[in-house]
């Protein structure tokens, strides 16, 4: 697998995991590099300095005694679960009576006092600090150079709910949420296999984000997993805002219009991809998964296709593909035909178009651009508008795009039909990012069609097809298994019966192993 230089990560930096090193002043940076001392007061003062306790209201330092030993419980209010801290840390420590002469240290507390399952010992200051800000609790012990990190994360999070952007008629309805742990649980539920690997990775140098790679051992190609791992570790950014930013950092062709990774908010879809040998990425605060590698056809498939009987699935998929083609090509074709190739329109249709346009003051290209712009304006406004006044937008949109524009002779009725069909075609595409990419492609086709007629239209179609065929997703051709042709299940443009689909995906480990042997 070929990886370009920008993904080759700085080994030293990653190994040190100097979290926060770039945003701290020199003295605090020096503190971060240290390990714990045996003096509790000294340790606490270090953490007070690092957490800016004098101005930070939510950093909590609670001194308690456990069988005479002095401890300090450190946590961030709101991120950690108060109930867990009260019931299983504070109460357990304060009430515990150790045998006389017992030395109270980290191992003793872990073995005899603390009633929380997930705990670990840690000496490095930056590790402890990184855990604190994610909601864990640290116990600093007087006379000990080790702290205990306890899993007490309990911040408020949204419950697992219905998907909002990838609705299906038949099939599971739940979607990913912002909590990484919940999302991992969802993946475990959908792929109940001991081979399912959830590998934690931290991305970002100043404010890191916790990520998890999810893949199926022996099914996912190790080279692909390694490529994903290396690219993630090689992300050279101070902060990363969720999976959307990650995607931009690690995709093969950042200049390409279409995404080379799949975003899905459906755990069942992510699980299906994982079982096909792809790698899913989950991140804290991102209510969706990122899948790689993918092909164009993944962007056109929806969960409904697999849940429905094959006849229905095939029909729906064909409708979607026709929708995509209409979305990209129809306005460009319309403008090419009406501006340059009137002889290719039957006279009755041409008469209708000409009569409808008789009072329109703009050339067709301006008319179509006005309509496209209005359409996206309403689309974007509809996304941002508060729900309470959403219905008003519908009225405005219907009036602008419909009756008013036609009555004022600004737009011809036939163009409204063209733009409406184009818009519908775009909405039939399951992937939001892919849909926006196609809209930009459409503008390119419109520009070429308006400039050179069918010659320009064909030129645009040709350039787009070459661009698509030149794209790669983690080294795998974007248009595979059609171009290049690779053995595949009858599940691309049409979805034939499920019992005919016996082949592993062409980028799954087992398949590649067999291919390599043949090669």
């Amino acid at each position: 697998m070929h990886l370009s230089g920008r993904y080759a990560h700085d080994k030293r930096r990653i190994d040190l995991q100097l979290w926060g090193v770039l945003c701290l002043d020199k003295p605090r940076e020096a503190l971060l590099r240290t390990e714990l001392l045996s003096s509790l007061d000294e340790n606490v003062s270090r953490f007070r300095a690092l957490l800016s306790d004098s101005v930070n209201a939510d950093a909590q330092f609670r001194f308690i005694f456990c069988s005479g030993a002095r401890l300090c419980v450190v946590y961030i209010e709101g991120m950690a679960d108060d109930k867990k801290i009260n019931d299983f840390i504070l109460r357990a420590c304060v009430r515990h009576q150790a045998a006389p002469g017992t030395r109270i240290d980290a191992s003793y507390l872990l073995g005899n006092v603390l009633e929380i399952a997930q705990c670990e010992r840690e000496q490095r200051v930056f590790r402890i600090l990184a855990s604190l800000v994610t909601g864990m609790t640290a116990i600093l012990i007087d006379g000990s150079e080790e702290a205990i990190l306890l899993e007490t994360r309990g911040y408020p999070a949204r419950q697992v709910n219905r998907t909002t952007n990838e609705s299906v008629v038949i099939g599971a309805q739940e979607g990913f949420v912002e909590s990484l742990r919940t999302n991992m649980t969802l993946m475990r539920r959908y792929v109940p296999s001991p081979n399912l690997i959830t590998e934690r990775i931290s991305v970002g140098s100043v404010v890191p984000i916790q990520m998890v790679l999810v893949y199926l051992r022996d099914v996912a190609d190790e080279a692909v997993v390694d490529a994903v791992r290396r690219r993630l570790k090689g992300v050279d950014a101070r902060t990363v805002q969720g999976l959307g930013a990650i995607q931009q950092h690690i995709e093969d062709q950042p200049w390409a219009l279409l995404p080379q990774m799949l975003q899905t908010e459906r755990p069942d879809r992510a699980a299906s991809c994982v079982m096909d040998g792809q790698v899913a990425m989950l991140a804290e605060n991102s209510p969706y998964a990122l899948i790689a590698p993918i092909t164009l056809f993944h962007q056109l498939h929806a969960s409904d296709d697999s849940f429905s009987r094959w006849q229905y699935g095939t029909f729906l998929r064909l409708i979607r593909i026709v929708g995509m083609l209409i979305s990209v090509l129809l306005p460009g074709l319309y403008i090419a035909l009406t501006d340059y190739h009137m002889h290719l329109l039957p006279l009755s249709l041409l008469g209708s178009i000409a009569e409808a346009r008789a009072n329109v003051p703009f050339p067709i290209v301006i008319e179509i651009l006005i309509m496209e712009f209005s359409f996206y304006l309403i689309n974007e406004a509809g996304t941002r508008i508060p729900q309470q006044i959403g219905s008003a937008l519908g009225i405005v949109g219907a009036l602008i795009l419909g009756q008013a524009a036609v009555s004022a002779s600004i737009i011809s009725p036939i163009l409204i039909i063209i733009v409406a069909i184009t818009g519908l075609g775009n909405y039939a595409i399951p992937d939001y990012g892919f849909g926006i990419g196609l809209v930009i492609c459409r503008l390119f086709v419109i520009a070429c069609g308006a400039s050179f007629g069918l010659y320009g239209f064909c030129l645009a179609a040709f350039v787009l097809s070459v661009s698509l065929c030149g794209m790669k997703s983690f080294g795998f051709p974007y248009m595979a298994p059609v171009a290049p042709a690779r053995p595949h299940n009858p599940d691309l443009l049409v979805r034939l019966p499920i019992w005919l689909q016996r082949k592993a995906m062409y980028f799954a480990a087992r398949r590649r192993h067999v291919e390599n042997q043949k090669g």
Partner: protein
Amino acid sequence: MKLRIAHDAAAAAAFVAAAARIFVGLALDSVPIHNGVWIAALLGALPAIPYLLCLEAVQAEAQPNRPAYRMLMLLLASVALLDASEVLSVVAKTSEYLTINHVPLTVLTVPVALAALWCICRNGDAVGYAAMLWIRVFPVLLMLVLLLQLPHLHVRWLQPRLGDGWRAIANGGVRTAGWFVPSTAILFVSDRGGALPAKHVSRAWLACAALVTAPLLALRLMMAPTVVRNASWLFNLDALLTNGRAPLYLQLPMILIWFVGLLHLLSCDCFAATALLQRLFPAIDGRACAALVVLGTALLSIHDFSVALNRSAAPWVFILAASIVGLYVLVLRDSKGGEHR
């Protein structure tokens, strides 16, 4: 940038290019051979296969430092460049005819040259796999053409007639063989260590290319034989696109096949010429080679002289290329035998 193309991608590109070239050549450029046009297409494919076998043998024993090998590369690059210039000229003139007749021909040449440059810079796999993609689309469009024009097609006109006789057909056959040569250049630069190397795939593709032109040529044939009149090029194009008698609005799928096929042919020719140029002068960057080739193609296409030269040279191209390749294979065999001894 190193220009490379996988063998399966090159085979697909060569297939589309050969089919498009034979169709364009026999439909527009060839001397009138009337209903014998399909015989000429098949006749031309026959010598192309042994030629390709020899070319593959030469490619397998790549000896870039040998003068004869470099001469062969130079010949193939020149042929591809000349062919590209003619194709570019046909694309521009066709678009001019199809109503963009208010602008100079150069303006119509520039965007397609830019598109070719863009395609080469995406590297060979993009060019070849795009051809592989369109191979799935073309039959649908062709079927659409046949269905739409069915009432206007007269099967009895497919009856083989030899037109001006065997001499004219043989001439067409040799020209057809000559049109194969630029298409094979891309196979010559292909990387045979691809993921799924298929034996004889290129030969099979090329043989198919000759057969695929049959339905296209059938459309061409299903015009009433007009041997009295020397039909002009433009009249030929209209007749080609709609069979002359079908309504003009049925031209649409045929125009799409026409333009996209020609664009593939152009990008295939340009890529082959660029890759050969880079192999001849490895110090030059791929993008610079691409720019040189595209610029050369555009300049040549503007002058009718080069286009006329390419047309008149078509029969000789095959003879020359086949002779060089054949001699090279003989020399290769002798030198191998010497080593054994």
